[in-house]
């Protein structure tokens, strides 16, 4: 029976069917739903780790102890996990270990679009790239087998359009795989230089064996067609090529590290013109050229952003490739028409979001705000504009300290802002550094009791695990104190006056300080509060309330208007209006 599944659901299913018993990861679009789905299967253990490095280390430990393991993260998560990854290639595995790297060409929800295929080459580990959900499911099984056969962790690299697209898959029963026994083996697992050198050599031998395997693996295959053009492609680009360049000869690479030199040469010899179609970097193209073959790729197709079948067809036609007409009855696309300016619809903080108050105040106080990544990054966009920087998870605290080092007068004008999940992920070490090195910075931890950005996952502060079991909730105040911060205070981010005072005092105090802005995410904890009312007499039309960027507030005919169904009654605007025109609902309002 075939089921419609996203790539992420299929990966979870593939792990379940192939006997994986341990799943670990850290949320990040477009990888998050893999572990969420996996956690619902019986007979497995699934966990959120506080960050990707820990996730991979837990995974490696589970593999050492003989389990089949799934580790999931988004592309930038692999940067965080890169340290264990590089050496895990030396140690190899016991139970099969698959690391999913979910890349995001086009940056739908990421801060960069790095091409993680280079990580597989860098670490010298096998890599598979599915092009739809069925392949995603099948490749998990194949990757686990290869992991065990070649004693290496294996990367399964997806992209947003594979992870978040649904297609039909065949599901099967689970195969129970017994735990492999653990045997103490220091030369394999204890990477001191003397043993490391041995494993380095062994890694080369393992890679040589893989080079033979990749020539014959069923996921690398040629479909001969029109021999005037031969396209080498992988991942979702394969599907685009099938649609946009029907009938051409194709070398489809499902295993993209190591690459099959012989198969590529055989393909090249059978076609007149060799073309590589791949999203992002010329990873395949450079390899093919390195074989001394004549090839084009990035001269025709862009090296950034995601592809579409339309883009591939138009670039191929413009480059003079003999591309046959598409299958579709009516043929060519209708050309675009000119349109009036279409205003954007950027995502905004929800009505009642606890983050809004913080950024409103920070903007008012004109501070230098080093920021971080989460829902709250939206607080950096107009009209709130209460954040100056966003680089990677955890960067806010280190960067604030760096500002202070460069210009000591900045310590009284700078704050770092970081979410609770982000603080556990990689903010703790930044704060430790600041205290240790005599910094006087102020850190605001936005404690909304969840990982909201990626869809409300649990974390070490929430008191619950991925599998819904109760867990000890870390005491944030005690944690911060233990790092050496003596000035710690907790404020309600929806109380503007209190929050303003706290920030002013802590920034001025000349000692490291932490303000915990604590209130649960408005989507997670829906409070029943009556909507705010407008006193149209009192409203002067000054538009101050619009500075909050609240989706419930507009100014129409020079008077503020609050849309009752959208308003969450959080009361922030009531505090912002200097004329008392906005009133808590339920109050007398005439």
């Amino acid at each position, binding site marked *: 029976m075939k089921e419609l599944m996203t790539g992420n659901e299929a990966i979870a299913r593939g792990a379940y069917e192939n006997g994986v018993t341990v799943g670990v990861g850290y949320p990040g679009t477009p990888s998050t739903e893999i572990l969420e789905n996996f956690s619902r299967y019986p007979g497995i253990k699934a966990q959120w780790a506080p960050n990707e490095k820990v996730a991979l280390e837990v995974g490696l430990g589970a593999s050492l102890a003989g389990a089949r393991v799934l580790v999931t993260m988004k592309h930038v998560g692999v940067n965080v996990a890169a340290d264990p990854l590089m050496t895990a290639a030396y140690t190899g595995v016991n139970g099969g270990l698959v690391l999913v790297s979910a890349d995001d060409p086009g940056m739908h929800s990421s801060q960069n679009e790095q091409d993680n295929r280079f990580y597989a080459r860098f670490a010298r580990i096998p890599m598979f790239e599915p092009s739809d959900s069925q392949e995603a499911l099948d490749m998990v099984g194949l990757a686990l087998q290869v992991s065990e056969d070649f004693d290496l962790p294996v990367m399964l690299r997806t992209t947003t359009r594979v992870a978040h697209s649904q*297609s*039909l898959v065949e599901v099967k029963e689970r195969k129970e795989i017994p735990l492999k026994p653990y045997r103490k083996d220091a030369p394999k697992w204890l990477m001191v230089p003397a043993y490391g050198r041995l494993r380095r050599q062994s890694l080369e031998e393992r890679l040589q064996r893989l080079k033979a395997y990749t020539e014959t693996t069923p996921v690398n295959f040629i479909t001969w067609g029109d021999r005037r053009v031969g396209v080498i492609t992988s991942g979702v680009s394969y599907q*685009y090529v099938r649609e946009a360049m029907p009938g051409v000869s194709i070398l489809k690479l499902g295993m993209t590290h190591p690459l099959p030199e012989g198969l590529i040469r055989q393909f090249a010899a059978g076609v007149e013109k060799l073309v590589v179609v791949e999203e992002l970097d010329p990873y395949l193209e450079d390899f093919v050229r390195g074989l001394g073959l004549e090839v084009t790729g990035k001269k025709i197709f862009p090296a950034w952003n995601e592809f579409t079948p*339309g883009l591939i067809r138009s670039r191929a036609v413009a480059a003079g490739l003999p591309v046959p007409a598409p299958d*579709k009855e009516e043929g060519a696309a209708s050309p675009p028409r000119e*349109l009036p300016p*279409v205003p954007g*619809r*950027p995502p*905004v903080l929800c009505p009642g979001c606890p983050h809004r108050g913080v950024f409103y105040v920070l903007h008012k106080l004109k501070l230098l705000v080093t920021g971080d990544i989460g829902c709250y990054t939206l607080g950096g966009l107009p009209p709130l504009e209460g954040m100056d920087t966003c680089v990677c998870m955890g960067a806010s605290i280190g960067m604030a300290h760096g500002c202070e080092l460069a210009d000591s007068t900045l310590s009284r004008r700078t704050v770092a802002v970081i979410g609770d999940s982000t603080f556990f992920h990689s903010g703790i070490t930044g704060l430790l550094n600041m205290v240790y090195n005599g910094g006087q910075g102020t850190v605001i931890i936005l404690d909304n009791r969840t990982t909201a950005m990626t869809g409300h996952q649990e974390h070490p502060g929430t008191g619950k695990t991925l599998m819904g079991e109760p867990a000890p909730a870390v005491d944030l105040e005690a944690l911060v104190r233990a790092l050496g911060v003596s000035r710690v205070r907790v404020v309600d981010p929806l109380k503007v006056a209190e929050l303003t005072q706290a920030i002013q005092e802590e920034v001025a105090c000349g000692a490291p300080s932490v303000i915990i802005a604590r209130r649960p995410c408005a989507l997670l904890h829906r409070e029943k509060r009556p909507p705010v009312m407008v006193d149209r007499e009192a409203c002067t039309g000054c538009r101050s309330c619009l500075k909050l960027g609240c989706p419930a507030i507009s100014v129409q005919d020079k008077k503020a208007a609050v849309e009752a169904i959208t308003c969450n009654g959080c009361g922030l605007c009531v505090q912002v209006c200097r004329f008392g025109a906005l009133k808590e609902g339920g109050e007398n309002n005439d």
Partner: protein
Amino acid sequence: MTEEAARLPVDILMVGVGGQGIILASRILAHAARAAGYDIKVSEIHGMAQRGGSVVTQVRLGEKVYSPLIPEGEADVILAFEQLEALRWVNYVKNTGTIIVNSQVIYPVPVLAGMSRYPENIPAHLSRRARTIMVDALQKALECGNSRAANVVLLGSLARRMSIPLSYWMNALEACVPARYLEVNRAAFQSGYTL
């Protein structure tokens, strides 16, 4: 209609605003299409859907579907849950295609904050591109008893223009909608279907 005709490729772009129920609508559509024997691909970008951003779902049906993405200018139908979103994506539909658009207007924050203007007379722009059908889905849904069923009203008017038999749609509704909302949604579907 013959089985043959039933499997001609159909590309549908569903666009709207986070929270309007596009994901459920696409799920019902995929369910019905699957029963009718289509190959299917559905691609969703819902990154910050809960935070009121644009949502786009591409649904492709056919004998065999490769790309999950619809090439620009080749969609058969745009099913728009909001007027501005219809305009944003209008060049995706082919000239001979159809635009079904909810008459609802949802101002994005830049418009609310006075930083940009909501375009005037969107339906006129749409109908210059392709045949445009306006649906007051919110009103229809309210008449059926729940404003949140507007998505299913729109789906009904899409279903009417597709070659998937009505019974498949009904089964799909049953499979995808929680039991306590089923009656309202059946009524909403019918009201869109008979428009």
